[in-house]
């Protein structure tokens, strides 16, 4: 059953993605000022958004773990963080490629960029910390704590760095600007791609949690074997 869901999601994501790609490169015209490169936006921003969403879902699961002490929640939030981390990195990489082309530099310390990087660092630390601890319950407890601190901090970072210089483009989506900034056709593809990437992320998380679950099973089985 579960495989079916995963596969279904993956297939859906793939189809949607290919459709979007076709639209992007065959249908949509080049952007006025930036030319062809603007298309990177269709992956750049959604990756970031999916990442952000992921972290906060992970936060809720961490809280759930602390309240219920059920390791399932822990592995769930852990896998979500890992997947989100991947997308954050995608966001940063695509971003800096874009930056290299548009701004001529790989990096600048703009609040959007910085907060993205801080986010990545915090949760990279999270992943490292998990690796460094063997004992499952201890690992779960500590990473839950770190996840909570991390998410709260990301919010503060976001708010605080806003007072800083920034040359990163502001919101372009009509839901945030009230429309007009982005060509509706483009925006449609933007949302479709966001959806595609979201599906992909969910599929990945499911696979990852599955791995975690089997790991837990194997662990307990090994214990039983050794106890006997």
């Amino acid at each position, binding site marked *: 059953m579960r495989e079916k869901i995963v596969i279904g999601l993956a297939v859906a994501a793939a189809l949607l993605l290919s459709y979007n790609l076709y639209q992007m490169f065959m249908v949509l015209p080049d952007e006025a000022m930036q030319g062809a490169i603007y298309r990177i936006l269709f992956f750049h921003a959604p990756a970031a958004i999916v990442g952000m969403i992921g972290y906060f879902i992970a936060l809720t699961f961490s809280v759930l773990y602390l309240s219920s002490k059920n390791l399932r929640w822990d592995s769930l939030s852990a896998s979500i963080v890992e997947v989100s981390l991947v997308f954050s990195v995608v966001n940063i990489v695509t971003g800096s490629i874009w930056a290299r082309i548009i701004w001529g530099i790989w990096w600048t310390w703009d609040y959007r960029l910085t907060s993205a990087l801080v986010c990545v660092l915090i949760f990279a630390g999270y992943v490292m910390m998990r690796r460094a601890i*063997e*004992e499952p*319950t201890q690992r779960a407890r500590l990473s839950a704590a770190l996840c909570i601190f991390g998410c709260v901090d990301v919010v503060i970072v976001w708010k605080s760095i806003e007072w800083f210089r920034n040359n990163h483009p502001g919101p372009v989506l009509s839901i945030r600007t009230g429309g007009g900034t982005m060509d509706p056709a483009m925006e449609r593809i933007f949302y479709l791609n966001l959806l595609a990437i979201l599906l992909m992320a969910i599929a990945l998380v499911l696979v990852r949690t599955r791995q975690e679950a089997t790991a837990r099973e194997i*662990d307990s089985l*090994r*214990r039983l*074997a*050794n*106890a006997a």
Partner: protein
Amino acid sequence: MPEAVVLEGVWKFYGDYAALRDVTLAVESGSCCALLGRNGAGKTTLLRILAGLSHIQRGQVRLMGESPRNEKARKQTGFLGHGIGVYEDLSACENLHFFARVAGVRDAKSMVSNWLDRVELGRVAAMPVRQFSRGMRQRLALARTFLHKPSVLLLDEPFTSLDDRAIAMLSELLLDARREGATIIFSTHQLREAFAIASHVALIENGRLRFTGERTPEMLEDPGLLYRRYMDSGAA
């Protein structure tokens, strides 16, 4: 008599090594239980679990009816581990004062000086522990353990590097504690001393409980008996 300490089907795993296997043990309040077993049997593990310092994977542990991690339970337990748990750079007096404050002891001052005398450290009360001999450290650690009048005492090899007089002193302390209704669980390899004090005996081998029961007079006569009779590996 009510049971002060109860373990039911306790399993403790380190990674996938089972350090405690289905241990079920009940210690009546007011009794003194000697925890015996070879190196690596699981004595320390068991005591640390009772002190709330170690998770168990299966089973249940109750200290005076509470979970060991519960603050109420912690208030009533005194724990002496392998590490003596005093600060090298503080004097004996400062150490005890600190732990008295932490445990919320009333009239700490008198208690501390009182205990320093009982363990015969009054003379060196102002000396930093770094300068203590091993036995003096152990005495200080004992004072720290008894300081807040715990009703459950968990002592891991309390006789370590104590001289004859100190051992006599400790036996005294334990007797007094029992008179005041305290429950005592201690591990050791010095069987003679153990049998001399204990009212009950628990024997562990490879994480399994081999024997629990009253300490019989014959154990006193022939300390080796227990190991020979109840352990697969037998005597030395």
